[in-house]
């Protein structure tokens, strides 16, 4: 069966402040002169290797797993799941 890399990116919703992103913005990026960069939101990145018939199936499986196991907390997080191309 083919394998696919599937990426999960978990971020805080807008209503939940992100102190790490705020600190990176003000204390590093803006302080060093990159004033056009207005905000940074940090998150958590997970890269999974998934056996599936095709990309869609891989993405669906990871979505089902993420919801079932609470990989993210739906009260405060958004979760983006994206299957990449097949792994050789």
């Amino acid at each position, binding site marked *: 069966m083919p394998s696919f890399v599937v990426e999960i990116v978990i971020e*805080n919703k807008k*209503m*939940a*402040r992100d*102190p*790490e992103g705020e*600190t990176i913005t003000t204390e590093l990026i803006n302080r060093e002169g990159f004033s056009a960069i207005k905000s940074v939101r940090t998150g*958590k990145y997970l890269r999974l290797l998934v056996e599936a018939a095709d990309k869609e199936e891989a993405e669906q499986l990871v979505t089902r797993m993420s919801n079932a*196991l*609470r*990989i993210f*907390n739906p*009260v*405060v*997080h958004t979760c983006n799941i994206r299957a990449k191309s097949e792994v050789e």
Partner: protein
Amino acid sequence: MKVAVIQFPGSNCDLDVFHVLRNVLGVEVDLVWHRSFEAEDCDAAVLPGGFSYGDYLRAGIIAAHSPAMRHVKEMAKQGKPIIGICNGFQILIESGLLPGALLRNQGMMFICKWVKLKVETENNPFTKATAKGTILDMPIAHAEGRYVNEPEGLRQLHENDQVVFTYTNTQGNLTEEGNPNGSMDCIAGICNLERNVLGLMPHPERASESILSPFSDNDGLQILRAFTEM
């Protein structure tokens, strides 16, 4: 009353709460490894503080899937008292027994210090003997304790009198300087709708003997005592 203190890999306040329950309150108490925990063995359960599973993915989430938590949910449904302290509070949130989320502290720091806590309600067995408005001394020690919820979730917590403890200043006002971690509405501890499950970030077990307190008080003991008398 027989209490179980459930140990997860990475729990590190298990012995402290065990000591207070057994030696200070004289309660029958067992330390139980999470894989061996059975609901039938006890009348009440403590989820102690620590860093279960290294806080990987999100504090409390992996322990929330431990077989022990199936039993804890069963106990909660039966109305048995459950208390989650610090990491235990995080586990209760992640297992869905309490609503909301506990995120990284607003200042990004691990904060270890004594704080002032205000008792917001007597309408639950944990604080029924402590007058509303009482200010308690208790220490916190956490990096992920910022309570966050959606506006509707917060409204419901207040409406249903589920906010049990808030961070306060010495005058009992909820101010930014009294709020160590940026929690919404200064929330430090909440209970479930049925009022038998309490989660709080501060450590009552570290504030249960006057010799351990910089204020020579033992404000945490009344909460743990009430828990054992439920």
